[in-house]
């Protein structure tokens, strides 16, 4: 059974300026423990796919399945790491990380223990009592990652999580994500517009076309794991992957004549 499956999914947004087909007839699936990256131009519907999987949006056509069951309401079996900062500013780091467990009515001592454990895993020791406004962008991402991992969702959705960070910090966080992922083997859907990041992290990369989105390329990455994030680009297979992904991204838009 695939962990995530989209069957003939279409999504149309209507606004005052008319209707926009963001997705139409989109099909793909991924297996348990697979790390999938999606790249594509801005506005190609990458984030819409994640919102559909999270159940925050409904498809206009087709079916979205998660763990074999159609996504009918907000999907609490996933962890969603958005591009935007969604930490609660009035809670400290440890209080923020504790939110999912509080929502599940976990006992206080257990919450405290698991929060401590996860804060250590994402490298935020010493900042437990800090408010988000006192943290740097990278530390806020770490806190959000801890908050997502603490309730152990089988599927992780990540929407350009390292987008606004500087290149070096990005590498550090990618390395830590890979480490956490290899320890837990979650199914990941990772949206990015950085081809290098996609090749570095993923088992498979989908290239989306401009909307209405179609899959231009479904590329399996042949670089063995465990990977070193700063070494991946020197692997013999990297260049070929990069060339093919770039070509697919750059392909001229076919317009109906």
């Amino acid at each position, binding site marked *: 059974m695939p962990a995530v499956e989209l069957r003939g999914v279409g999504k149309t947004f209507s606004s005052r300026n008319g209707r926009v087909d963001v997705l139409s007839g989109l099909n793909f699936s991924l297996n348990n423990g697979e790390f999938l990256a999606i790249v594509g131009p801005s506005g190609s519907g990458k984030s819409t796919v994640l919102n559909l999987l*999270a*159940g*925050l949006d409904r498809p206009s056509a087709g079916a979205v399945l998660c763990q074999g069951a159609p996504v009918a309401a*907000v*999907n*609490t079996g*996933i*962890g*969603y790491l*958005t591009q*935007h900062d*969604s930490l*609660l*500013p*009035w*809670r*400290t780091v440890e209080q923020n990380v504790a*939110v*999912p467990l*509080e*929502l*599940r009515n976990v006992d206080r001592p257990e919450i405290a223990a698991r929060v401590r454990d996860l804060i250590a895993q994402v490298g935020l020791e010493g900042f437990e009592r800090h*408010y*988000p*406004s006192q943290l740097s962008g990278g530390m806020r991402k770490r806190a959000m990652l801890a*908050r997502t991992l603490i*309730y152990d969702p089988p599927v992780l959705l990540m929407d350009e999580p390292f987008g606004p960070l500087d290149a070096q910090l990005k590498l550090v966080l990618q390395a830590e994500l890979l480490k956490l992922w290899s320890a837990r083997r979650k199914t990941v859907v990772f949206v990015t517009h950085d081809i290098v990041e996609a090749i570095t992290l993923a088992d498979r990369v989908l290239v989306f076309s401009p909307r209405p989105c179609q899959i231009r390329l479904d590329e399996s990455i042949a670089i063995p794991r465990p990977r070193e994030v700063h070494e991946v680009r020197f692997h013999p297979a990297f260049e070929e992957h990069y060339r093919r992904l770039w070509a697919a991204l750059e392909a001229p838009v076919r317009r109906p004549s």
Partner: protein
Amino acid sequence: MSTQALSEAQGEPALNSSSRVWLYRAIFLVAMLAAWQVASGPLLDPFWVSSPAAVFKTLVTWTASGQLGYHLMITFKETFAGFVLGATAGVLLALLVGASDTLHRTVDPFVTAVYGVPKVALAPLFIMWFGIGLAPKIVLAAISVFFLVFFSTLRGVREVDQKMVDALRTMGGGKFAVQRMVIFPSALPWLFTGLKLGLPYGFVGAVAAEMMASNAGIGYLTQNSAGQLDTAGVFAALFALMLVTTLLNEALGRLESWIFRWR
């Protein structure tokens, strides 16, 4: 915190900027009072404008006789009770109305219409309904506070960051959890703005009702002094009222900065 550290680091020798401002305030106050005292007599008839000395004397007499404390306490009780009632109702209703777009759009024109009525104009009605005791003053204070807190909180509820709501829902939060963990805390700064705006209006409501029909409270004291052509008494009552609102505002401000220490 950081700005404080900064000014300490710069190490101003005698006075930092905050205590300098306090000094200027004191100078301003003394200058105003002195001008009043000097003008009263040679320039202006003390019968109409009284003088700081006369007002002070009245305040001392009233304090000594316990009169001031008694009337202040009455007005304070009315305002406080009205404030708590009005603010609670305002917050609860704003949370309720803000949770549903349809409900919000349905009731909005009605609430706005009632809001437009000058609250003081309702005083005769409340006196008719509730007599001349504490009740009509509490109700008028409550109504005055209610609208400000309601509109302000509602605004805060409507402006909540949808991304935080979505994040909480994907983490497994239900409607009630979203209200408690996201909507209420994020509307809290707006709520406080409403409370701070509402406080003086609560006093206005209570005092206005006292002036119309009462035998106690600062409003009564003002009215009574004016009836006896005692200008110093009127000023003394107003001064006492000013002092109380200032103190209450200060208390609210402290509470606010404690609650929003995360900013």
